[in-house]
């Protein structure tokens, strides 16, 4: 982002955050959180192989590839 963009964004974010912080007013301990609008549970799939993508399809959008693999720039963070 340019520094102008950054400044506007920071301002906007500040305004948004002070507004949305109002949610804490009603979010008391006795109210449970809802992460899903519909109360589904146990949606499970049988362990049966379907039709995978071909390697060609998998790589079709790759900005760069080599030997059937995705070519990415060197990774610095070691893990």
């Amino acid at each position, binding site marked *: 982002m340019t520094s102008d963009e950054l400044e506007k964004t920071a301002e906007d974010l500040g305004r948004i955050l002070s507004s*949305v912080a*109002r949610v804490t007013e*009603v979010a008391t301990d006795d109210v449970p959180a809802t992460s899903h609008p519909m109360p*589904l549970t146990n949606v499970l799939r049988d362990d049966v192989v379907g039709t995978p993508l071909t390697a060609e*399809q*998998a790589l079709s*959008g*790759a900005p760069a590839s080599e030997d059937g693999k995705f070519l990415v720039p060197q*990774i610095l963070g070691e893990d």
Partner: protein
Amino acid sequence: MSNDLTRLTAAQLSAGLRAGEYSSEDVTRAHLDRIEQTDSVLGSFLTVEPEQALTTARDVDSRRAAGEELHPYAGVPVSVKDVVVTEGIRTTAASRILEDWIPPYDATISTRIKDAGLPILGKTNMDEFAMGSTTEHSAFGPTRNPWDTTTVPGGSSGGAAASAAAFQAPLAVGTDTGGSVRQPAAFTGTVGVKPTYGSISRYGIIAMASSLDQVGPMGRTVADAAALHQLLAGHDPKDSTSLSDPVPDFLAAVEAGARDGSLTGKRLGVVKQLSADDYDAGVRTAFTAALDLAQAAGAQIVEVDLPSLSYALDAYYLIMPSEASSNLARYDGMRFGLRVEPESGPVTAETVMAATRAAGFGAEVKRRILLGTYALSAGYYDAFYGSAQKVRTLVQRDFAAAFEQADVLVTPTAPTTALPFGMEDDADPMALYLGDAATIPANLAGIPGMSLPAGLADGMPVGFQLLALAKQDARLYEVGAAIEALVSDAAGAPVWAGVPTEYAADAASTTTSA
């Protein structure tokens, strides 16, 4: 001939095709011509697929000629919002980061559309990654409202709405996360429905906010929206949030609603927190007039109180960016889409990811990602995301209570008619977000909502929103059909018929932002 074909509704086209009055190829060509004539001004489409559409159309024609049993709407063309993944057809979500992406797979709804034999005219314009309410945030230019090309068609499904309103497509597929189908429908005088969460598959819908996104059918009439909804809905084993309930017969609901007396005894709940008091005078007038018509036809008007709605906007603007920030993390230039190397400094995976996202995402997207990342971060989760999920519970409870007193809830869809371009440049973002106040609660609660034209205000369409209990989408179609008929009869013609059909680009209205 071709002019006439584009003025027909999808229901009429379906009947005409089945009766052999014309071919799907004729119908498709007529719409492609219309697009060619008008889209350089309107900008509804990001990608038009004439070859594919005509191939589908011809295939349907020959199968029909061979006596094969086809889907009732086979051969009726459709436009698809560019947030829906279509195999082999460029899909961009209106973002530079996917500018040239050709998907290797189809969304479930794309498969359903193809299997039913509806020619896909092309992919429609939208706010980038569905973030916005005006379609001005598209990376590829805005879409203009056919009612007044100096105004926006709404968003984020602006292209879809404009395509239906301007007779470029009889049916349009959009998506709605906080009102992105209903509000553009309101601004363009068309019908847009956000179904019950989970009733239409999200597999292959480029995700913005997973717990809020839903595919929404759009058309010029309630019946057309119903037909498209019917085709798209149903359980999808590839979507874990997909409902298994049987799909109701929406067209039957439309028929029931169109009968005399269908509104008798129906309780319409006016939402206190979304009362027209804060809204534009013209919107208020049109809304009240439509309510009066309904009351005269036997409906009961009651007032309902949903106090948690005062917090709904805030909760939405926490949940949505949080989920979106995570959903958009995958756009990093490693596996697909744009890859940009930094102009200076080392070229590493980390720097390329950063440079790609900086170049590929627009300002609104960046803003929401930052907001979302912040809201989820350690130490803030409970206050922000966690609290917002609690507000969600309160909103659901308030709706449940309200629906004990009313069969459907009613609000104006938006506080204004279509806004001029460039409104967002200097405005306070929260003030802009207020425009979604009426539509957001339905996404939070997962309940279905519909916007249909209530009339005009200063020559611009006003949207009337209906909300129903989760899984009661059919009720929307029933009441919606009734109100649509009342509004149409009172005005002497359906609202959509009043749209201008020729468009000239006004140099002064060119949008400044993207």
